[in-house]
């Protein structure tokens, strides 16, 4: 009889965490016995970080046709999710803080339950892929014994609380936000007021305004450290978020005193649980509630809620000991004087070493390609940490790991040890350090291969890194596999998100090119899509745009300013020839994605002769709608918000009309009739529905058709342009599906 981890670990797991996992294990058994529904079990496992993965519906396209994967029939772990199909385990790492011991436990888990790879996410989590659900309780127990919980890593819950990885050692922070991130994590974990959300809730902390730090502007609740007359507090923001339609967070309070932090977060959670959307998950984030109520009303409701909340000593108890997350260096500070510098050290130190505000100490960034490391590399990091810095290790939202409190004199030795472990790559925080979500590699929602593209760009850019002009060296490239923005494409200099386009009878992987985003200032501005380019031409987009910037910039002009000055129309024009797709028999490489040799598809392909005659017409119409969406952007850039709004709405209407024409060729040029026909033929029939988003995109059209804004401003115009873009993308997808149905 083999042993179990439950017996082995015994009292090394706290009662609370142990009971949590026992309950989960019981629910697994109930599901095996078919005594709880797929819906309930699905949310149960999600709240423990046990996530679905691509092909878990038991089907996979092999490049020719969709094949059934011959799993045992019957048992499922969620709606349309096969029990035996491998899944992803997300592991919360609050504020990215991890110890050497925990790195070793994580390494062991990756070897025994996953594929020997640990993946750092854009929210400082760690993910393991290809995990069987039967292994998850043991995996959770081993994590719990090392002080890590996966509770509420996914699902409609408070997700990982993130924080600037430089907190406490940063030269520009107001104060160390780590103990506050830690306290809020502990306070809200499993809190009764946080169990009835319509969607997830994300929190971030930053030590200062102007760096990227915690990317506060794109979070449901964001906190920037502020000192006022020597007293600690936070400038707080609510209602930010990326996703399909990004929202900049709204200022909630210029100075929220530290003692008010926890109760205010609790009050927000209560109001969100009570008033947030529950039925339409596409509009269930806090950002929609804030937008619906307005920030002043939202704030009033929070303040009212606070008045009726019962006092909780936990609100301020943690303030008695803010040193709980303090770090101590292992090695005395000493300067890097005459030590020998190993080969490659200089280039690495230029990009991967940050001088702490504490004299003689540095933060070393370990650049992980695509956020991936092997188990052996995690163990090597644990060894390096023990030799040089103790447990002062953090993950970052750029999918890297930092070692803090490295004495300057230790830097060459640390570099040598990292290089020996295959972790000595330079280029952290530069254009080479491309961020990407999992995309089609493992994500069920991925449309195009974000990781494949990221790997290709990283390889090409790393080869050129010695020649790269300083003006573009610190560009950020961020890639998402779909519009859901997990790769944070909105806040990069060059952002891309995956889409597909129909060319003849084939689907071709494309990426929308996003320009104008801002990484610094806590994700200070969101970019907008300027056009779709075939996936295989994206490296050329990077080359062309960066070269044009270097040639045409004026003085120290930033890239954002450059794009603003020359205009997106001009930038788009310089990419026009890259949008062409040769016929399949001329160059089939366009019809596969990066890092995947299969012919590209977003589902089963079909060749429809019935629709054939309509194809040229609808494609013309679709192009017309894309043009209008782009024109809307030009108006937006020019400050013509009303015109931008109108163009974006027209673009949606145009795409809707294009679809209606496939069934009703003589549809008049009348908005009332187009919307009515579109509703009847494509919304009510669910033809236009997205597998993930349902009818969300159609509702964009209906909402703007029914409710015109009383006044026009930048935010409103920006939002409808985003929505129009998504509406058009879904029209393309719908058209692709229709051809399959007709085939």
């Amino acid at each position, binding site marked *: 009889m083999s042993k179990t*981890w439950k017996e082995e670990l015994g009292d090394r797991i706290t009662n609370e965490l142990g009971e949590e996992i026992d309950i989960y294990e019981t629910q697994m058994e109930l599901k095996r016995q078919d005594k709880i529904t797929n819906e309930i079990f699905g949310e149960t496992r999600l709240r423990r970080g046990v996530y679905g993965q691509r092909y878990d519906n038991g089907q996979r396209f*092999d*490049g020719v046709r969709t*094949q059934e994967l011959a799993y045992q029939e019957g048992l499922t772990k969620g709606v349309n999710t096969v029990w*035996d199909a491998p899944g992803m385990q997300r592991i919360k790492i609050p504020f990215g803080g991890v110890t050497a011991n925990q790195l070793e436990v994580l390494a062991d888990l990756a070897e025994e339950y996953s594929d*020997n790879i640990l993946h750092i996410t854009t929210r400082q989590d760690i993910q393991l892929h290809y995990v069987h659900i039967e292994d998850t309780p043991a995996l959770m127990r081993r994590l719990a014994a090392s002080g890590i919980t996966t509770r509420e890593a996914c699902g409609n819950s408070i997700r990982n609380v993130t924080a600037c990885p430089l907190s406490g050692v940063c030269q520009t922070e107001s104060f160390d936000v780590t103990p506050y991130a830690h306290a809020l994590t502990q306070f809200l974990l499993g809190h009764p007021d946080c169990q009835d959300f319509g969607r997830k809730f994300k929190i971030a902390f930053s030590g200062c305004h102007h760096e990227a730090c915690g990317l506060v502007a794109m979070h449901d609740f964001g906190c920037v450290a502020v000192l006022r007359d020597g007293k600690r507090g936070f400038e707080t923001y609510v209602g930010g978020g990326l996703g399909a339609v990004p929202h900049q967070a709204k200022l909630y309070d210029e100075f929220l005193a530290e003692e008010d932090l926890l109760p205010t977060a609790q009050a927000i959670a209560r109001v969100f649980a009570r008033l947030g959307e529950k039925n339409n998950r596409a509009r269930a984030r806090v950002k929609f509630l804030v937008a619906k109520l307005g920030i002043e009303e939202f704030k009033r409701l929070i303040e009212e809620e606070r008045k009726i909340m019962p006092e909780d000593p936990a609100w301020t108890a943690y303030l008695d000991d803010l040193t709980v997350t303090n770090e101590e260096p292992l090695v005395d500070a000493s300067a890097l004087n005459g030590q020998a510098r190993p080969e490659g050290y200089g280039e690495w130190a230029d990009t991967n070493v940050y001088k702490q505000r504490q004299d003689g100490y540095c933060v070393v960034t370990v650049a992980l390609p695509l956020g991936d490391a092997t188990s*052996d*590399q995690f163990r090597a990091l644990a060894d390096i940490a023990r030799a040089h810095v103790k447990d002062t290790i953090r993950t970052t939202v750029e999918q890297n790991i930092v070692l803090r409190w490295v004495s300057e004199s230790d830097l060459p030795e640390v570099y040598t040890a990292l290089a020996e472990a295959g972790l000595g790559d330079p280029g952290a925080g530069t254009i080479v350090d491309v961020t990407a979500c999992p995309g089609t590699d493992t994500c069920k929602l991925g449309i195009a291969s974000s990781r*494949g593209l990221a790997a290709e760009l990283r390889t090409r850019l790393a080869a050129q890194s010695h020649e790269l002009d300083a003006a573009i060296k610190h560009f950020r490239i961020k890639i998402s596999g779909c519009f859901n923005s997990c790769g944070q494409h909105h806040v990069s200099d060059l952002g891309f998100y995956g889409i597909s386009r129909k060319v003849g009878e084939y689907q071709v992987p494309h990426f929308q090119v996003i320009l104008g985003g801002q990484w610094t200032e806590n994700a200070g501005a969101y970019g907008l899509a300027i056009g779709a380019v075939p996936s295989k031409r994206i490296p050329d987009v990077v080359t062309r745009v960066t070269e044009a910037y270097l040639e045409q910039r004026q003085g120290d002009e930033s890239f954002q300013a450059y794009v603003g000055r020359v205009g997106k129309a001009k930038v788009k024009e310089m990419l026009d020839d890259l949008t062409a797709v040769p016929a399949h028999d001329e160059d089939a490489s366009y019809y596969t994605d990066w890092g995947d040799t299969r012919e590209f598809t977003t589902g089963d392909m079909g060749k429809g002769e019935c629709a054939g005659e309509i194809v040229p017409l609808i494609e013309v119409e679709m192009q017309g709608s894309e043009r209008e969406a782009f024109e809307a952007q030009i108006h937006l850039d020019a400050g013509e918000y009303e015109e931008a709004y109108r163009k974006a709405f027209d673009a949606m209407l145009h795409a809707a009309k294009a679809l209606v024409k496939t069934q009703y060729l003589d549809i008049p040029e009348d908005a009332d009739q187009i919307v009515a026909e579109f509703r009847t033929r494509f919304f009510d029939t669910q033809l236009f529905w997205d597998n993930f988003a349902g009818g969300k995109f159609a509702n964009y059209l209906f909402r703007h058709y029914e409710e015109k804004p009383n006044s026009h401003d930048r935010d409103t115009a920006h939002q409808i342009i985003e929505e129009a873009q998504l509406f058009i993308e879904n029209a393309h997808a719908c058209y692709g599906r229709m051809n399959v149905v007709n085939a």
Partner: protein
Amino acid sequence: METKSISFKIYMDKGQELDPEVWFRVFNTWIPQPDDDILVDVADYSHVKNGPVTILVGHKANYALDNTDGRFGFQYTRKRDLQGSFADDLESTIREGLKAAARLDTDPALDGGVHFTGERTQVVLNDRLNTPNTDDTEENIKADVDAFLSRLYAGGSAKTQRKQDARQRFTLDIEAEGTFSPSQLLENIDS
């Protein structure tokens, strides 16, 4: 002695230079033609150093081109449904691993671009709970391992060396005299 998961790696002296895309393509063709497994997906990790390169993920086992420790080879990891004695599980894992290696060895898409050195192999007990990297585990499995290696290498000499880092899984590096292809090793097991 029971263990829940065993890996078997057979090293290669030709094949490392192939574009990872080649492995991806080959493994992708295996998915619709499984051999006693449900094959699910291909994962590319060629961007990490000294780790897995390309993995064909299955339900019962993973099939990987692997460069851990800078030593390139094909690794078969049996991760589910081991239910026999240790000797049975060891044999079935190595047998299945060799069958997969032999399939690669003769895959027309690789066109002779690979060469296995079956005289250098590795066995990993992928279960720290039941088979930790200790002297006790080594002692407990020694007779089974020796007996099987004798069959595998047709009575020839085979040396084993255990990884000593206690944090690592129980790992035996095996080196035999002579040269062996995957199909020869399979024949040896069956003879």
